[in-house]
Each structure stands twice: as C-alpha cells, then as structure tokens.
C-alpha cells in the first residue's frame, strides 16, 4: 500500500470498493458454508458438554461425557479398531499407489487404459463395492477362497464372518478402493521430477534401485507428505465402507469411531455423549495433521 498522503483517500476508497466486491463474490457460497459447516463445528464444542438427547433441553453436565467415555469399553474398542485400520491402511495404500504410479510412469503400452481401470474403484459407490466384495469374500463359495484353495491354502479365512478376519477384509477393500486416487497424485508428483536428474544419475552408473532411492523418493517428498496427511484423515474417519460391508461386526470386531458416533446419536439418541466422542475424533485428526505439518517443516529447513 502506498503511504503518500495524497493517495490515501483514493486508496481507502479502493479498499472499501474491493471489500464490497470481494464479499459479494464470496457471500452466496459463504452463507451456506457458514451455516452448514462452520456453525456446526462450533456448536459441537457446546453440545459435547451437555446431556442432550433430542427430547427436552440440553443440560450442561461439564466433563461428565468425557468421564463416561473413559470407562466405556465400547469406545475403547472402537478407538482400537480405528487405529488398527489406520496402521495397516496407510502403509499398504502408500506402497500400492506408489508402485502403480511408478509402473504407469514408464513407456508401456496400455498405460492409459490401466490408469482408467485403477481409478474406477474410487468413483464406484460404497454400497455396490461392499456388496460385491462380500460375495467375493464368501467363505465357502466365494472366488477368493477358491483361489486360495487352488494355491494350497487349506483352511482359508472366514473373512467377514470371522471376527479375526473381518478387519483385514475391510482393509483390503479400503486399499483397493483408494489406491487409484493416490496413484494419480503420485503420478503428478513424478512428472515434476526433472528428467536431467535421471540422466545424470544414469551417467554416474546408478542402478535402478539407486535411482529410485536417490532421485525418485527425494523428488516425491512433497507429494508423499501430502498423500500421508490425506490418508491419515481418510483412515480415521472410515465409516460408510464398514457400515455397509460388516455393520461393525461380527460382534464389535470392526466397530470404528465414526460408526460408534452414529450408533450413539442416530440410533440411541444420546447426542450429547456422541458429540463428546466426535470431539475425540476431531482432536485426533486435527492433532495428527498439525504434527505432520510440524515434522514436515522441520525436515524442510
């Protein structure tokens, strides 16, 4: 901004004109956004400290909801299952999507077709995906166990009918669904790496593995970081896939945090308590994102 006294009135007029223009562009979207997203996020922090149950007024109960959560075995099961899903889903998806991206970044025929195929699961609805995979996973007649039997696995897992194998089944489907999406992000990242770097590495006699470790991976650092952040949030909020595929079962073997929130609020009308669980979910996602950004910043400097 110029500070000469003579230009100040004009500047001020420009600023106020820009403010009006700016807000009038943003307003139509902002009204909806503020009412439907910002406001609910703020209200959440109030409801979590009440015993609201749809009927009657919400009564302020302080930290009662959080103390109750501490002794709630189902809450801990849901949290544990969410972490279980996350711990496997993130590395598996990272490896699969990076592998696919590296494969597609080569001059092979049919790459374009394959990119379409890989992205397809991501745009297919959860309901259709869940019901197909449930048929594929069918313990006695499904093709997956038939394949396992063909390669000599004797007692093939019961997948979604067994409490030990239902979570692995969900993780497999989750990875299958999302790897094409992250593959696209990696592919975009790969193309920002200058070709000269590879040429230089090659003249220095670097093996393909060395090129991967010393050129590709450092060049992808930014993308990998971004993908990890997205994957973390996506994993912690996993819900609809599990809801349709296993309904949290058998027993509570695939019950996750989001589903627990849903059960407590929309099935049992305990909106206050469910909001407290929501805050935990929110806090986890938020703090992990912040930590990741801090670590990334330190590594960059």
């Amino acid at each position, binding site marked *: 901004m110029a500070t000469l006294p003579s230009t100040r009135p004009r500047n001020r007029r420009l*600023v106020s004109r820009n*403010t009006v223009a*700016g807000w009038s*562009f943003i307003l*139509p*979207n*902002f009204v*909806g956004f503020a*009412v*439907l*997203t*910002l*406001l*609910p*996020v703020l209200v*959440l922090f109030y409801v979590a400290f009440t015993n609201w149950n749809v009927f009657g007024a919400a009564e302020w109960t302080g930290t009662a909801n959080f103390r109750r959560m501490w002794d709630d075995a189902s809450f801990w099961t849901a949290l544990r299952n969410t972490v279980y899903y996350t711990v496997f889903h993130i590395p598996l998806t990272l490896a699969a999507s990076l592998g696919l991206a590296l*494969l597609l970044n080569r*001059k*092979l025929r049919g*790459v*374009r077709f*394959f990119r*379409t*195929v890989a992205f*397809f699961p*991501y*745009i297919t*609805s*959860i*309901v*259709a995906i869940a*019901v*197909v*995979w449930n*048929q594929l996973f069918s313990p006695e*007649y499904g093709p997956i166990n038939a394949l396992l039997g063909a390669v000599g696995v004797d007692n093939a897992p019961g997948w979604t009918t067994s409490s030990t194998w239902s979570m692995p089944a969900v993780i497999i489907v989750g990875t*299958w669904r999302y790897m*094409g*999406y992250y593959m*696209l*992000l990696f592919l975009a990242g790969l193309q920002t790496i200058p*070709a000269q770097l*590879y*040429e230089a590495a*090659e003249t220095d006699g670097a093996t393909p593995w060395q090129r991967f470790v010393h050129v590709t991976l450092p060049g992808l650092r*930014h993308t990998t*970081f971004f993908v990890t952040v997205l994957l973390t949030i996506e994993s*912690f*909020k996993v*819900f609809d896939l599990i*809801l*349709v595929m296993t309904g949290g079962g058998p027993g509570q073997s695939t019950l996750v945090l989001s589903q627990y*929130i*849903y059960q407590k609020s*929309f099935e049992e009308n305990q909106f206050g308590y*469910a909001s407290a669980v*929501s805050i935990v979910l*929110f806090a986890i*996602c938020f703090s992990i994102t912040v930590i990741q*950004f801090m670590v990334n910043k330190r590594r960059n400097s």
Partner: protein
Amino acid sequence: MTTTDLAAPAPAITVPGSGRPPSRRVASRGWRLVGYAALVLAAAGLLLPFYWMVVASLKTNSDVFTIPITWLPDPVVWRNYLDIWQRSDMTTWLGNTLLLSMVVTLLQVVTGSFAAYGFARVRFPGRNALFLAYVGTIAVPWQSYMIPQFILMSKLQLSNTLWSIVAIQAFGAFGVFLMKQFYETIPEELSESARVDGLSEFGIYRRIMLPLSRPALASLALLTFVTTWNDYLGPLIYLRSPELRTIQLGLNTFISQYNAEYALIMTGSVLSVLPVAVIFLLGQRYFIEGIATTGLKG
C-alpha cells in the same frame, strides 16, 4: 494447516512418462516384460470385482455361487434387468438421485466459482483468514460435526426433505478450493488490462474468467455429480421416508430385504454404477485433471 502446502499446484498429467529418455535399451526388454506382467496382474485384481458384478447380474440366482466357480453366465439371464424394476423402487431412487445430483452440481459450480474469484483476484481485508477457515474445514471429518449439523437442519425443518442433501453438499469448500487453484494460473495482466478498460470485477469474472475456466468447471461439475450420486451417509441420516430414498439408500434396503437374491442384488448394483461409469468414461480427462490440480477430495 497452512495454505502454502496445499496450494502448490500440481501439473497436469501427461501419459506416459513424458520427458524420460528412451536410453535404457539393453536391460529394458526383461524389465518391460516384468512391467507388463505386473500391469496385467494389477489390472486383473482391480477389475475382478467389476467382472463378478456384471457376470453375476446375468446369472440365475442359483448359479451365482457354484463349485467350481462358473466365470461365464450360462444361461444368460437378461430377465434380471427387467425384474429389478418390478421388485424394487428403482425408478424413484434413480429419479431422486438424478435430481439431487443435478441441483447440487449446479449450485456448487455457480457459488464455488463465484467465491473462488473473490478469493483469487479481489484483495480485501480478512480475505486470507476467511480462506483459511475454508481450507481448515477440509481437514475436519464430516463425521465429527454431523450431529450439530443434523440438529440445525431439524431446527430449520429441512431434515427428511431432499433439500437437506442439497444443503449439505452444495456449499462445500472443495469447489472453492479447486476453482481458486485454477484462477491463480490465469495471468493477472489479463484482468488488469480489463480493469483499465473499465470492466467491473463482475464483468471480468463473466467475460474473461468464466470462458477461460471451462475445463476446471467441467472437472468440478463431474466430481461433484459423482460424489453426490455416490453419497450414502448423508441420505442415510437425513432421508427417512421411502419415497425420498436415493439409489444408494434404496439399493442398501433392497440388499437387506432380499439378501439371498444374489443375482438381482448384482443387477441393482450394476444399474447404480452404470451412470457414473458412463460419465467417467466420457469425461475422464476432467476427472484426472481435477484431482491433479487439487489433490483434495474424499
């Protein structure tokens, strides 16, 4: 969350491996074969569920699960595709979903691109803080604030109406983000010279930015359409009456009602996926560019 990390614009994808020198000819033949083998295997794994879906949808119910597995329908039961309309309320579900997807897409594209112009090109106090609020909520899972949002919608008398889905889907931060990313790649000088010529901000948006941003608008429209079409949780929470059901909700009730009708369930699934598949195949380029420029969705 800082905007700088998110805002790094990724380049459009060109396939395959452009710019890579074709110099490794000696060792490459073996690697090529390995590469192709890997591609074929991965493609088979990715496609198997879709293959199963289509094949099972054309089988008689008792043929879906057999030992050994039959990989081709014999006889081919086209009848399933007639029966499904009588056995379920497909017409209503598809109609509702189509209506919702179109209204949401229209609103998202119009308000999103409008707001994005304000964020990208008009300088005013508080702009960056406001944009941070938008981007920040992308990191907040919807599941964590669905309860207060539901309370609010009930207070507004919107729950159990199709409007509730329009309301929760149409004003997302995603559209604003995608369009802003795109507008920032358009040279400032263009709007600067238009300003000198006396065009208002709205005029610049309409005459210059909109025509230039057609590809980005297409990306946003397609991504929004597909997201709304596929949404399961929103309708699950908000739409209670059977006549308001969307295709995802309807399909899921059909599945729990007729859980032993394996073939018909697959027929319904194919029908629910088909429109999205067609849209995707037609507008593939826009999907991929949209994802690459934002890297943000889902």
